[in-house]
């Protein structure tokens, strides 16, 4: 996936991961929209963040439509709950045909259908295991 030409990005879940990614992309002049249930979590965004924020439930299709999900190029599901991320990612990929959908999923055994729908899965657990193996056995996996 190349981000260069893609401009509209929706991030759902403004935790440490979501807020940091949104900040980085905003610095690269992308049009950002970040969604979270809790207004106060937007405090985590960097001072230079130039995108929009929306308070609400990211699994609600009325909310997703109100932020023009069909026009977005990339959607990142980064809430703290695997099931919620899976639901959001599949709504985006299957119903609204968002070209690139990325979901953070701790337990990848749950994400069995995500590959089939072309969703990119990032698993902190898998990444940590790989880092460990590299560090301890000095092997690439």
């Amino acid at each position, binding site marked *: 996936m190349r981000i260069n030409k893609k401009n509209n990005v929706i991030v759902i879940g403004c935790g440490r991961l979501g807020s940091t990614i949104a900040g980085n992309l905003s610095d690269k002049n992308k049009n950002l929209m970040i969604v979270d249930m809790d207004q106060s979590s937007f405090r985590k965004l960097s001072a230079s963040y130039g995108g929009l924020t929306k308070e609400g439930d990211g*699994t*609600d*299709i*009325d909310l997703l439509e109100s932020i023009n999900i069909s026009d977005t190029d990339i959607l990142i599901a980064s809430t703290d*709950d*695997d*099931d*919620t991320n*899976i*639901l959001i990612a*599949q*709504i985006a990929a*299957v*119903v609204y045909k968002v070209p690139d959908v990325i979901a953070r999923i701790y*337990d990848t*055994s*749950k994400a*069995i*259908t995500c590959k*089939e729908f072309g969703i990119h899965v990032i698993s902190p657990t898998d990444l940590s295991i790989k880092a460990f193996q590299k560090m301890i056995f000095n092997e690439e996996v």
Partner: protein
Amino acid sequence: MNILIVGGHAKANFLTKSLKDSGHNVTIVNKDKEWCKIMAHSHGIVGVYGDGTKPFVLKDAGAIEMDTVIALCNKDSSNLVICEVAKKQFKVKNTFAVVNDPKNIRIFKKLGVDKVISSTEILSDMIEFEAVIDNLINYLPMENEKIILSEFYVDVRSKVADMKIKDIDLPPEAIIAYIIRDDEMVICAKGHCELKVSDKVIVLSRSKDFAKITSLFYWGK
């Protein structure tokens, strides 16, 4: 049939009882350890304690042997994950999810869940028809709610009382199929038949015409 029920308290209890009574093999999965024990004891079934959205828990519960999986968790997203894992990993033929948000019915079906129901929607449908609930006896939506089979009671105040069927202002795509008189005589409705007070009437209609139909049998405004 082998049926697995994931999540839910009162709903799971009720379903387990009625499915057991009709001769099915029921297994339950629940996050609540005490509830698992209670269910296992009171119904004589296998209760598996664990988070049903995790594939290994479903595996322990024998998901691979199941014909049907019913997901009753409080969170819509959990129910989606349960049904998807059951379908893809354990090749379960029928998956059934309960959702809170009625908008998720369409989405879940698109994502491959076989049957989706929303208690919120059923409740709001019932409230909507409460005004006519006195003379609406049966209400059965079919074909994804495109068609409605309904049964009405003809009250003395109903607009259609003592009218011939051909004179009733029915929507063009609606049919009065049968008239049930004195609880035993079933009459195949023809144009010249007259609707009498205390008849019951079976009507088939499109769901968009349903409000019009109810107004014919209702006596209010």
